């Protein structure tokens, strides 16, 4: 294909990606050094009640001719970042009188960061294990039954994550059916959603439930491509089931395990939907949730876009680190030779 034809084919997509991904990304970088606020003015007003009139000074946003609040943008340097990272409080926490890590985790950003990292690292082995066990199990079941099993298995994966999280939440919230069962079994009063650790465990469980099927499908497809001759040879040589798994099957699907691990790390780092679904923000928050929260209008209708941009940029640092191995892998595979 001629380069010119190639360009015509990719142009619409390239245009969209540049305008709608690269430009907003650049905007976010710029905004993270800016602060936009409504211009406030002090107005003297007469307030009258039956007992006479008095003058009240009130602060209100300045409106333009259209009745929209006038806003002013100014450059603030690293202020948004310092407001997030709070270096003063960090050094306070680690000073003589400070509370150490416990105090550090009281700061919004570090709290979100701590959870995001724990979440990403803890779910990884669980998801891979679940996917591998399911793939091996389904692979040894008669072909006839596999269709319905795969159907049910796909459900947690394709379902809307917020709704999936809600459906699990409803099993536990208040006297939900599983809480009630647990209470009956242990003969005690349990309130799942008042314990931070229980909420965190549920959020972790949800991700394993949600992503396990994805890993399963990939590894199951990998199992179909195993060379049967080597398996047969191993049986003749007297390899036990465990040895066959350890020395033939797992090495064969290892590239796939690496692939799904990388994908999972990137996706889990962006954890957000389950926080909303479980309504877990009182106990655990993630980096994306932090940005989202800054972007939502507060009680006065203000959105802290500068703060949100700074938090988005800090989130990006982690993404870049996680992206490096993925890029390296793709580089080696797709590099033009």
């Amino acid at each position, binding site marked *: *294909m001629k*380069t010119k*034809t*190639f*360009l015509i*084919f*990719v142009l*619409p*997509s*390239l245009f*969209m*990606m540049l305008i709608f*991904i690269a430009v*907003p990304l650049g*905007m976010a970088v710029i*905004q993270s050094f800016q602060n936009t606020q409504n211009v406030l003015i002090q107005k003297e007003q007469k307030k009258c009640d039956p007992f006479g009139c008095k003058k009240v000074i009130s602060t209100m946003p300045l409106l333009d001719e259209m009745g929209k609040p006038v806003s002013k943008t100014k450059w603030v340097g690293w202020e948004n970042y310092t407001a997030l990272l709070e270096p003063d409080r960090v050094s306070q926490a680690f000073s003589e009188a400070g509370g150490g890590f416990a105090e550090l985790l009281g700061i919004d950003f570090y709290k979100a960061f701590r959870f995001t990292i724990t979440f990403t690292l803890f779910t990884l082995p669980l998801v891979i294990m*679940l996917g591998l066990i*399911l793939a091996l*199990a389904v692979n*040894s*079941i008669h*072909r006839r039954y596999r*269709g319905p099993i795969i*159907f*049910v*298995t*796909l*459900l*947690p994966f394709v*379902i*809307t*994550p*917020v*709704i999936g999280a809600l*459906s699990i939440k*409803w099993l536990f919230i208040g*006297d*939900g*059916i599983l809480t009630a*069962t647990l209470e*009956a079994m242990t003969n005690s009063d349990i309130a799942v959603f008042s314990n931070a650790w229980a909420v965190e465990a549920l959020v972790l469980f949800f991700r394993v439930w949600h992503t396990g*099927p994805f890993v399963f499908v*990939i590894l199951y*497809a990998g199992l179909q491509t195993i060379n*049967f001759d080597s*398996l047969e040879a191993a049986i003749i040589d007297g390899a036990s089931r465990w040895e066959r798994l350890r020395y033939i099957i797992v090495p064969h699907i290892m590239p796939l395990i690496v*692939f*799904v691990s990388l994908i999972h790390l*990137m996706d889990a780092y962006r954890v*957000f939907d389950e926080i*909303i679904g479980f309504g877990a923000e009182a106990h655990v928050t993630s980096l*994306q949730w932090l940005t*989202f929260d800054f*972007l*939502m209008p507060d009680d006065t209708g203000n959105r802290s*876009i500068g703060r949100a941009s700074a938090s*988005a*940029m800090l989130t*990006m640092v982690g993404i870049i680190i996680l*992206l490096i191995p993925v890029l390296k892998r793709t580089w080696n595979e797709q590099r033009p030779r």
Partner: protein
Amino acid sequence: MDNNHLYKLSPPLKLLTWMVVITWMVIAAFPLFWLVTMSFKLPLDAFDANALTVIFGPNTKNMIGGISIVGVLVALGFGYLFLKAHQRRESIFDYFTAFFGSIPKFLVIIFLYIIVIVAAIITFFMVVPMVSSLFNMIFGGIPLLSLLVEPFMGITTQHYEAVWIENEFYKQFINTVVVTTGVVSISLTVATLAAYGIARTRSNMAFWLLIMALCFRALPYSTLVTGYLAPFIEYGLYGKRFGVVIVLVAINQPFTIWMLRSFFMNIPPELDEAALVDGCNRFQAFWKVIMPVMWPGVITTGLFSFLLAYNDYMVAMLLLDGDARTMVPAITQYFNRETTLTDQVEAIAAAASITAPIFVMVMFFQKQLVSGLTQGAVKG
């Protein structure tokens, strides 16, 4: 080739395997099953601590009514009819395509599906209750037969009615339809062209485009929305469904390109070359020769685009408000104001309604979903 003998298991291992699979299936399906069960019960039953009360809903049965064994059989009978129709869908499509003559086949198929969905809703929400109450009237007085026709399980559809009719959830449904249709059609059109170009060129630029797309795929959505929000508010795109469509198409673009490209790679380039030799130009070769064999790949990729747009919460929540919201963010309105138990069950009914289309989609497109997932991974 069946190589099952290589995986043949000893009986205890076989038992263990089945136990693992069945346990997983229960864990996978139970939350959704419970969601649907609760949505059909009065709050008194739905939030009972006893599982059997929730399933059989005695209070719902006494106050509203329910379904009898005959009713279940009638429902199963209709379900069987739908299943049979599904199994013979190809011949049905062909019959109606011939019947309508000049209308393209895919329009006929879409039209038929809409009719079937409406028919299914009418059947299960209106015809089945009517038929079973008719049976109840006829056989209600007869001692042994009355056991068959008397309700044994309480069921009410009032929460669904409240959600869809009183609370006007159909508005949100229309928003979702608009957004997902926009996202799927635009992102497929743009990405199919790009993916074809990338798959067929020897230029280095294709490689760099793929790397760029991969980097963009890793971006957190919140980062992008942060960049969009200020200009959207400035230029009046805030609160417009079109704005959300653009954002979701952009977010979706990298992933779509990668997936479509791997489908194009499976089509031998000799096919294009033959077309070129026969006097087509590139676009004719693409449109007349390659696209006809690409449809399965396009449909699969379309499914994933649909899922992304349908399941999105963050973008729609931040860029839309009020009546313009799509279904998923709108459901947060329910659990923010869930003051009474009835509100909660209505939220559950809304959640079940959102899940239903996805359930149907997996039923019809299971094979395509699986092939789409494995496409990028297994073949590189």
